[in-house]
Structures are given as C-alpha cells and as structure tokens.
C-alpha cells in the first residue's frame, strides 16, 4: 500500500511539474496567433493556464497529496 501511495504522489508531482514547465516555456506562447476573440495567443494562453493550474492543484488536494 505504502509503495502505491508513493507512486501516486510521484505522479502528482510530475503533473505539477508539467504545469510549471508550461508556464516557463516562453518560446511556446510568445506569439500573436491564433487569436481568441481578438486576444493574442500570448495573453489567452496564460489566462487559461491559470485555470489549468487551479484545477490541477484542486485535484492534488482531493487526492490528499
């Protein structure tokens, strides 16, 4: 059981790491297109990444990390 818990924990940390990487990988989102309702990609991507992070953290909380 204990080993499984450790594995779950590691999986969650990995997920949070991907979130980090997404936020830090500037070359990926430093672009204007595609726009969303006239908003350049740079802005709407970072907006939506906030929501992704919030959901991931909430799931980690639910999983009693």
């Amino acid at each position, binding site marked *: 059981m204990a080993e499984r818990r450790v594995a779950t924990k590691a999986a969650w*940390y990995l997920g*949070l790491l991907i*979130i*980090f990487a997404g*936020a*830090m990988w*500037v*070359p990926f989102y*430093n*672009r*204007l297109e595609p*726009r969303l*309702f*006239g*908003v*350049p990609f*740079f*802005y709407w991507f*970072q*907006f939506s*990444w*906030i*929501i992704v*992070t*919030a959901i*991931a*953290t*909430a799931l*980690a*909380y639910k999983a009693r*990390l």
Partner: protein
Amino acid sequence: MNWQALSVFIVLFAFVTVLGFYAARWRRGDLNSIDEWGLGGRRFGTVVTWFLLGGDLYTAYTFIAVPALVFGRGAIGFFAVPYTLLVFPFVFIVFPRLWSVARRHGYVTAADFVRGRFDSRLLGLLIAITGILATLPYIALQLVGIQVVIAAMGFDGTGLVGDLPLIIAFLILAAYTYTSGLRAPAMIAIVKDLLIYLTVIVAVIVIPMHLGGYGAIFDAIPTDKLLLAPPGGDSFGAYTAYATLAFGSALALFLYPHSVTGLLSASSRKAIKRNMALLPAYSLVLALIALLGYMAFASGVQHMPEYAPYFDRYGPNFAVPALFLHELPDWFAGLGFAAIAIGALVPAAIMSIAAANLFTRNIYREYLRPDCSDRHEAGTAKFVSLLVKVGALAFIVFLPSEYAIQLQLLGGIWIIQTLPAIVLGLYTRWLHRWALVGGWLAGMVAGTGMAAAQHFSSSIYPLEVGGFTVAGYAALYSLAMNLAVSVVLTFAFRFVGAHHGADATASEDYDEDIPRLA
C-alpha cells in the same frame, strides 16, 4: 476636487476603520500574548485565510504597478501571471511542513524555525534581519499606492499639507493594528477583496465596451509591445528575463515575513492546502488588472492634457487612476480608489505585524531581554509595529518615492537568500549551519552588487556567458551563488568535523495535521 469620488472613498474608509477597531472583539482572545495579537490565535479557517492571504499578497502596489508596467513596457509586465501561477503549487508542496512544525513548537516566525532546526542563534538573527529589511520598503510602497489615488481625487497640494490625507490614513491604521493585531487586517481583507473583485469585474466589462471590445484594445497596442523581444544573435532576448522573473518571484513570495504570518495564522494544514487550490482566483483577477494597463494605453489617457501633470509626477503609475477617472462614473472611480487604498492598508498592517514579530522574537527576546514575560513580549511587538509604520510614513513623506521602489526591488533579491535555510531546512539538515551563513552572505553581496551594477533601476542582470547575454532576475542568479557556496562550505565544515548543533525538531513534526502542542 472630485467630490463624488471623495465621498464614496471617505464612507468606505470610515467603514473599515470601525471594522478595524471592532476586530479586537472578534474570536476573542488574550491580545496580550504574541500568538493572539500577531497570529490571530492561529484560528483562521479556509475562508478567512483565503481573504487574508489574498489581501496580503495582492497589494495596492500590485494593482498600481503591474498595469503601469504593462502600460509602459508591454508584455514583460505580464510576468506577474506566470509568477502567481507558479506560487501556489510550490507552496502547496512545501509550506504545509512549515505550518506543522511551527504549530508543534510554537514558532511565530520563520526565523524561530531556522534557529530551532539548525541550533544557531546567528542564523536565526540573519533570517530575521533579512525579513525586516525586505519588509520595510514594501510597507513604504503601499503608501505610494495610497498617494497616487489620493492625488487622483484632486488633492494636489504639495509638502506636508499635500501628504496630510496620507498621514491621517496611516495613523488610523497604526492605531487599530496596535489594538487588534492580525484580526484587524483579517477582517478588513474581506471588505478589501470584495471591493477589488467588484471594481475589476465592472472595469473589465464596462471599459472594453467603451473602447470597442478586446480586439480593438489589442489592435491599439504597437506589435513590439504585445510580445517579448525574441532571442537574437547573441542573447535570449526577453525570454530568460520573463521566465526567471516569474520563477524567482514565485520562490521569494512565501519567504516574505507577511506571507509566513498569514500562513501560520491558519487553523489547519488542510486550510492551507485548500487555499492553494482556491487562491488562483486572485491570479485571474491579477491577469485582468494587468490588462487594465493596455486599456489605459488604448483609451489614450497619456495624451490628455488634464492628466499630464499627474503623469509627470507619478509616471506610468497614474495609468490606472487616469483610466478610472476617464472611463467610469465619478462615484465608481471613488469605489475603485477606495479598493486600492484599503488594499494598501491590509498588507501594510500584516507586514508591520510580521516585522514586529521578527524583531520581538528573534532580536529583542533572543539577544536583549531573554527573561521577558509573554505579556512584555506582546507589548514590545505592538510598540514596534507602530514604530515600523511611522518609519515607513516618514520615508515616503520626506524622501523621493524612487528610493522605496529601488529598495523594494533589492528586498526581493535579499529575501530569496533565506530560501536555503527555510525551504531546504524543511526537508533536510544536510547543509551545515555555518555554511548557510556563508551562502547567505555570498548571495546578499552578489545580489546587491548585480542590482548596483544596474544603478538599482532594474533587477534584471545581463549575465555574460562566453559572449552570449543571458538576461535574468538577479535574485535567481544570486540564489544560485548562495546555494553553491552553501554546498561547498558544507563539505568543508564536514571535512574539518565542525559541530552540527542539535535539531530541536523531529521528522514527524513536519507532516502532522493537528499536531500536539509542545
């Protein structure tokens, strides 16, 4: 004088003043103990902690400075978004450990923890001094926020008379912080956050309607401002600056004493973890606030003669006030200004309490009066919180506000030097206590030197690596230096067999949900 805005402002300000004094009776406790006065009795549940931390971390200066940066420099100012986004997962993983160990051992400050963990009074003292040094200019900056909105309502007197509204506001704040302690900002934070949410939601709906929608706003911004400068022949452009600013600021945020105070006042580990999933709501608001900078730019307030004298005096910091005055009805602008001013009071109160806790616990009781009673300790903390606020006030009234801005910039570089002792200390005692002192010193000197090389006007340091320029946040560079020195010295001290000291904590202290009281 803008009477409509001013009336709304005064009514709201009077309301929170009453709340501030009333807070002393809320969840009544013995305010003559530092645990009650300085940490609200560690009794705040998820909801109050959410408002308190939100009110604490998203300061008035944030609301003025972030859109000002976006207004003046464009995309780089948006770094505040990845910054606040990185903070919460990081805190979620690391800081519940600090809460547990502090609860178990009755630690009030991070310096208390470091002193116990590494058995080093000196290291505790250095952590405390760093915290105080980083906090003082931060308090002064809150005053800059109030100054700008007071000016926007038409108080443009100069000299001491011009600063009178600011002085009155701050003295009131000092009085209720003295009597009510952390309960005052906790209660006021609820009003503050509701006002901020209301202002921002209305602003981001109404203003784009005037300006022809978001598409039109972005179309009005020059393309080179909309994106970060891409990497060129011998540099990474603004990419590394953007990413390191976000990452470094995220690492630094919860090392600030006022963040630790907010965190330790939570009633349970669960309340903190839950908050890390709920606090991103503020990140969304911050992202919207950043966009206000573009709205101000698109509305053309910078070219309007009626605002020119203010832009001359406050620079881009006047962008948001000008936008509100120009695009919103006067009474609503007053509500927005009240939100910003009250948004300055909450963090200023918590910061002064945090600085007072540090001074009292880690300098006064540790070095000056080891035999002092709990009552005397709380009394000293209250007095110091007054002193700190008067000092910040004098700083802003008598010195140019650029000094506060430059010092706050240095504060970020300084506070991150406490990371090895605090954050790594939560996991391991492998680093030697004296090595941590050496690392701290190296980081402080290197970081201050990098900021000085930029004439204290920017915290971005252009690191040259083999003819290639990597512009990055000086705090992160100096932290790397700190860590490197700490590791090397740890090997050295281990090699000569220098004594480690005794750990006052046990490994199970870090994971308990409702720890026993020591």
